[in-house]
């Protein structure tokens, strides 16, 4: 079973929210839509859910086109950012809601509700109203409610962004574990790259209504297809090959001699004592030292009009540098990649 999105287009007035977006999602896969606000990720999720009508394109599940079906008939579970638990119903009745709408027999509903409460570990809170539950508990109930009718696909719209940092981190792992246990195809919208990296099998990076790149977190981080992806996921030093920048050797095949913007991740920058020489070795002054516990960030200023480079060091290496110290930074050729041709 797979979910196929074909050439979905949607406008809000003059704004193009989705520009002919196509995507295929395998059964049991956990996919994150990642991007800045306004990139169309939520709109795409809502089109898939049937809450928003696309002007053109198709949403197919296992070859069957769903685009004409209202949200009621799609059997997709949705968890909203604001939980949206019905305030007039207890946790148990919220979970039962989807089953009641489908007019399932009473005893089966009761059994399923108990199952779902056990699944999210809230058996003791069955008879509480949403207002009596914490944010994390409400989101667990919302998840149980979405899963109760046994949906074909689970859609999560920024489900963690309203929660405290600590709860958010716990719930990330919990949702991921639950998804793997149930093997349910899941799509989550988020603007938090860390969330996407920890939870998703594949990440879909979106920008201005288009898909920028699709891949695993490792792929996106290691081989970003565009400058946007490179800058959006992780941090990146940009090295335009002009001005004061010395010519650097790099592993990427050159694009017929065109000037390129190179990029390097902060943790790939190597540091050597002043005076060290070699390929891609550039002397610099330590302009700033930021101690962050497990690592130290250094801002290195090479002078001669080059922009400062951010470096990250771990372990004992980190201790050796002080503000104003002279060092040599090495930008290893195999770590440099072209992020944009000019």
């Amino acid at each position: 079973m797979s979910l196929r999105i074909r050439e979905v287009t949607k406008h809000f007035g003059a704004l193009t929210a989705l520009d002919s977006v196509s995507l295929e999602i395998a059964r049991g896969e956990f996919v994150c839509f990642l991007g800045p606000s306004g990139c169309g990720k939520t709109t795409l999720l809502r089109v898939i859910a049937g809450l928003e009508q696309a002007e053109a394109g198709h949403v197919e599940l296992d070859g069957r086109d769903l685009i004409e079906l209202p949200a009621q008939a799609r059997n997709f579970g949705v968890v909203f950012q604001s939980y949206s638990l019905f305030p007039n119903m207890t946790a148990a009745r919220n979970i039962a809601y989807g089953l009641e709408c489908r007019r399932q027999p009473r005893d089966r509903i009761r059994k399923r509700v108990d199952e779902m409460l056990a699944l999210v570990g809230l058996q003791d809170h069955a008879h509480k109203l949403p207002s009596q539950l914490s944010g994390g508990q409400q989101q667990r109930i919302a998840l149980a409610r979405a899963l109760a009718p046994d949906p074909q696909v689970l859609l999560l719209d920024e489900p963690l962004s309203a929660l405290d940092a600590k709860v958010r981190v716990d719930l990330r792992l919990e949702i991921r574990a639950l998804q793997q246990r149930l093997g349910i195809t899941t799509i989550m919208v988020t603007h938090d790259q860390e969330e996407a990296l920890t939870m998703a099998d594949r990440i879909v990076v979106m920008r201005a209504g288009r898909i920028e790149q699709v891949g695993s977190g490792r792929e996106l981080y290691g081989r970003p297809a565009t400058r946007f992806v490179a800058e959006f996921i992780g941090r990146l030093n940009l090295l335009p090959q002009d001005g004061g920048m010395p010519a650097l050797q790099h592993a990427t095949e050159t694009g017929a001699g065109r000037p390129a913007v190179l990029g390097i991740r902060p943790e790939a920058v190597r540091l050597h004592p002043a005076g060290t020489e070699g390929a891609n070795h550039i002397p610099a002054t330590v302009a700033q030292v930021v101690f962050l516990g497990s690592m130290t960030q250094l801002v290195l200023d090479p002078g001669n009009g080059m922009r400062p480079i951010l470096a990250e060091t771990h372990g004992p290496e980190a201790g050796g540098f002080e503000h104003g110290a002279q060092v040599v930074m090495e930008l290893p050729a195999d770590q440099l990649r072209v992020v944009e041709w000019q």
Partner: protein
Amino acid sequence: MAIADTASTGIRQPRIWQRAPVLIGTLLVAGPLVVFVLWPLVAILMRSFSTPEGFGLENYASVLGTARFMRILTNSLDVTLVSTGIAVVLAYGFAYGVQRTLMPGKAVFRLLVLVPLFAPSLVQAQGLVLLFGRNGLINRTFGTSFDIYGYWGIVLAMVLYVLPYAFLILSTALAVADQRLYESARILGAGPWRIFRTITLPSSRYGLAAAIFVCFTLVITDFGNPMVIGANYNVLATEIYNQVIGQANFERGTVIGMVLLVPAAVAAIWEKYLSRKQFALISDQSKPLELRPNPLRDWSFAALCTAISLAILSVVAVVIYASFVHLWPYRMTFSLRHYNFDVQNGIQPLWNSIYISLMAAVIGVIVVTAASYVIEKLRSPVTRGLYFLSILPAAVPGMVLGLGYVLAFNNPSNPVYAIYGTLLIIALANVYYYHAQGFLIASTSMKQVSGSFDEASATLGGTRLQTLWKVTLPVIAPTLVGVAVFFFMRSMVTLSAVIFLITPQTQVAAVSVLLLEDRGATNQAAAFSVCIMATVVAVLLAVRGMLWLLGWKHVRLIR
């Protein structure tokens, strides 16, 4: 399943499953609004232009040009501006005392000022006549010869009549304030009067304006009080009654109705415009006001509120008293004989009032809930039109709407004629006369039911009807109880929308008070007034008790 070929048509159109409920809902709401609001207004407009020679301006010319009309118009504006001014100033003081001081007995004062809402709308004039009339308590006791009838009688009655309405608005406006502003002002060295002038007054200016417009509309359209206490001092509202009932001159009545519609409509539109602005003044970072004791201030306001409450109460108390004496003012011994209601129709008008009010409560809740649901949740190209029709009655004086019903429906060829002359048409007149207020209460509540509940329900397989029945209605149910009570209370006490619609069989209690008063049957009129008040209070207590049993708190019943 057929797959629409969107490549060739370009834009995908909304599907039938999206359109059908919108269409049905819109028709269900629009139909009755057109029949019971728009049609009567069109009927009255047409009639005002109809002459024996077809359409023309003769009716207007024959009314507007006369010296008598100009005098009545001036009278109306004079009475309205003076009573509005006095009532709003007093209500502001009263509301300030309740919201911004630590005077003792706030809860009691808050209740006392609302007492006129439980009584027929002409109880003020009735009470003032009993107190200051030729045979009034004062003249009798002290041998004086006060003459309350006329201008000052009307002004006094009107002030007492509209005080609670102004109080409700101003009390809301003064309820919220930002402590930080007051602290800053105090730190900067501002005195109490300066703080009042530069912070309190500006922050309540929208409430103040709304109170002025509401009072203006209430006074200029009220006819019960001037009928009873106005004597020869005629105002627009009594003139419509005189023309239609006294001289059976519908044309002149409709012309004056159209004239009355203008200031009432202008005031209502302004009020709606301003009420939208009130909310933006307080941000979510505001700190609630902390009141500090100030004996001089607190006791001054306690004195003011006591004086106002006594004035309100004395009027009501004297009516209750008069209902229990043998023959006012000659035999002041205790008697229950007026509660035998040995008048024409006996006690029947009271029962009629109760039936009508119960019907209005049930129909009113259904009608305004449906309207607010369709307008808030089923957006369509006609939503704005529906909204306009829903709040249009706020701009229409009750007598004008009632007269419109007569002109539109008292006609055997009209389908509504089937219920003409029944209690139902009177209940419907009340429902649509108070439609705007009921609708605004319901729609405010409906707006607070987030659209994300609808979406959550849809993704769980809930249909629109299931969502409405299982989620939306239960969430707003407490407000709907308040709406039902609102329709019941208003229908029990109102005169203006029903005065032209009653028949001897469908007479209502408030009209009985007016007619008995007119005939000089003071004691029976008082007894009817007391029965109306008792019914309203009993229902309020019963509903409050029911809500308590259900565990529903914070439900506002008096509006």
